[in-house]
């Protein structure tokens, strides 16, 4: 009985500890707003800001691809974003990245929904 109580207590403590970690991970994988502008400070910060957002988008794209649900233009949008960034067009690069990120996020939502929804469409 005592062992069971210990397991239960450990489980709740673990959940309590993990909660903020899970919340942070979810926050990190969220796409940013397409209206977001690159902070007008040093070029180093602009690059860093773009890279952070680009990585979020690229990770989501890869997750969608792994689920077999990637949309047609997501990858090419990211290629374009990278080209714009290379030319120093940070805001343009960021807007294209935001578009790609939203596509990847929606593709993942679609895959998640379809994992069960398809069954209702089978001809009976």
């Amino acid at each position, binding site marked *: 009985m005592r062992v069971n109580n210990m*397991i239960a207590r450990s489980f709740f403590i673990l959940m309590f500890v993990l909660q903020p970690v899970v919340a942070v991970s979810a926050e990190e994988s969220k796409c940013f707003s397409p209206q977001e502008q690159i902070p007008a400070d040093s070029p180093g910060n602009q690059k860093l800001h773009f890279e952070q957002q680009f990585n979020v988008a690229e990770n989501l794209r890869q997750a969608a691809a792994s689920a077999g649900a990637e949309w047609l233009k997501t990858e090419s949008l990211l290629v374009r974003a990278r080209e714009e960034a290379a030319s120093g067009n940070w805001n343009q690069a960021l807007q294209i990245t935001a578009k790609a990120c939203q596509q990847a996020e929606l593709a993942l939502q679609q895959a998640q929904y379809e994992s069960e929804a398809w069954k209702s469409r089978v001809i*009976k």
Partner: protein
Amino acid sequence: MIKAITAGLIFLFTLAVHQPAFAGPAEDRRAFVAYFESRFPDIPFAEYANGIYAIDQDARNQWIEIEEFPPYEFAVEQGESLWQETFADGKSYSDCFNSSEADVRQNYPRVDGLTGEVITLDMAINLCREEHGQKSFEFGGEEILALSAFIAFESRGNVFDIMVDEDDPQALAAYEEGKRFYYSKRGQLNLSCADCHVASAGQYVRADHLSASLGHPTHFPVYRSKLGSMLSLHQRVAGCIRDVRAKPFDLQSTEYRNLEYFLTYMSNGLEANGPGARK
């Protein structure tokens, strides 16, 4: 407590594992055929092998004219030359297929007993080449399309009778995956194969009618007039996937092979009538 956690984990694991959706393959096929028979009561079952020409009379009239000088004839001739090729070890394609070219098309796709993978005709051609020390053909390339066009031409009139052994978990899993792919919405337009070729079959998409899925695989490969070349079933599927703005899979990918397995099983009882001619 431990029992409760274990039971919870087992429940979650069960949810995670793919479960066959509702009915078995035979029941699925009966319902699939019945749907189209009820939807298009004037179309005889055998006509579905002609794809859109079973539904669209104007397109059918054009197709009949086109068939007077079949545009796939050159591919069939090239395929015949390739079929007669003797490999470096003295063997040929007929050794791999254990039959004449006239007895092949309707047997594909099938599930390999060892690997559990769906083997399509194009894949079987390349496996044959590899087994006899030949370089594989590029999927979607001129040679493999010509060879499959010749095999399809010689196999005309034979009836598809694809097996899905319900006691073989690998065959059943491949079938279920193909079925899942067929009914799943994908891409930016959020459309499934079934949305266009079941629910909207016979209706217009721009200036063309949408074909019925029943009979889709029977006439491939086809000569596509707009491309001026032959086209495999997987290339056509990739075109549809692109049209709904999803990223297409590789030709002969597991996804497309499983889909072909499902679709061809649905078309059992129809004659092999490839190669076809399409707009």
